[in-house]
C-alpha cells in the first residue's frame, strides 16, 4: 500500500478539494492519502467529500497551534 501526500498549505478554495480529488484518482484502493492544509473551510469540506465518495477518514489533526491541519484518508 502506497502513501500519497497532498500539500495544499497556503492554498484557498477550491484548490484543496480539487487536489484531493486528483490524488484519489491517482491512488489505488487501500492507499493512504495524507492532506496538509491551512484553508479553514476545507478542513470540514474534505471529510464531507470523502463521505460522499465512500472514502474512510482515519484522522483529522490540528498542527502548528491550529494554523495547519492534516487529514488522513484511506482510499
Amino acid at each position, binding site marked *: 500500500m502506497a502513501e500519497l501526500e497532498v500539500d495544499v498549505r*497556503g*492554498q*484557498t*478554495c*477550491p*484548490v484543496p*478539494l*480539487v487536489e*484531493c*480529488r*486528483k490524488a484519489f*484518482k491517482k491512488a489505488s484502493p487501500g492507499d493512504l492519502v495524507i492532506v496538509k492544509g491551512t484553508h479553514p473551510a476545507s478542513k470540514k469540506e474534505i471529510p*464531507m*467529500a470523502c463521505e*460522499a*465518495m465512500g472514502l474512510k477518514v482515519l484522522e483529522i489533526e490540528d498542527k502548528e497551534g491550529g494554523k495547519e491541519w492534516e487529514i488522513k484518508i484511506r482510499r
Partner: protein
Amino acid sequence: MGEKAVIVLHSGDMDKVYSALIIANGALAMGMEASIFITFWGLMRLKKGELEKGPLSKMNMMGLGRQMIKKRMDKANVVSLERLMSDFKELGGKIIACEMTMEIMGITKEDLRTEWVDEWGAVGTYIQEARDANITLFI
C-alpha cells in the same frame, strides 16, 4: 448514473466566470459529474487569449475596480481561471458551447479554445444534460 451539476454560464464577467468554475470544480471534487453550458457573453471568455480578460460585474470603473479585486485575489492566493479550467478538464468536466450564440456574435470555432469544448449544441443539449441533474444554475 452518478449525481450531476449543470451550470449555464451566460455572463462573461470575471467574477461570475470564477463562480461558475469554482462551483463546477467543487462538484467534481465532491464526486459529482459537472458540465458548463456556455452561451452569450460567456462565450467571449472561450475565445483564444480571453479567459482572464472579463470585466468585473459591478464597480468595474473602467477596469480600475477589476484591478483592485485582482490584487486582493492574488494576495489571498486565488488561482487563475486558466488553472481552474485545466483542473476542471482534468477531473472530467464537460464544456458545451452554444452554437446559436456563436452565429449571432459572428464567432467561429477557429476563434475559440476548441481543446476545452466537448460538445457544440443548443437549448436541447442543455435540457438533455440538465434533465437528470441534481444541481443546475444560471450564472
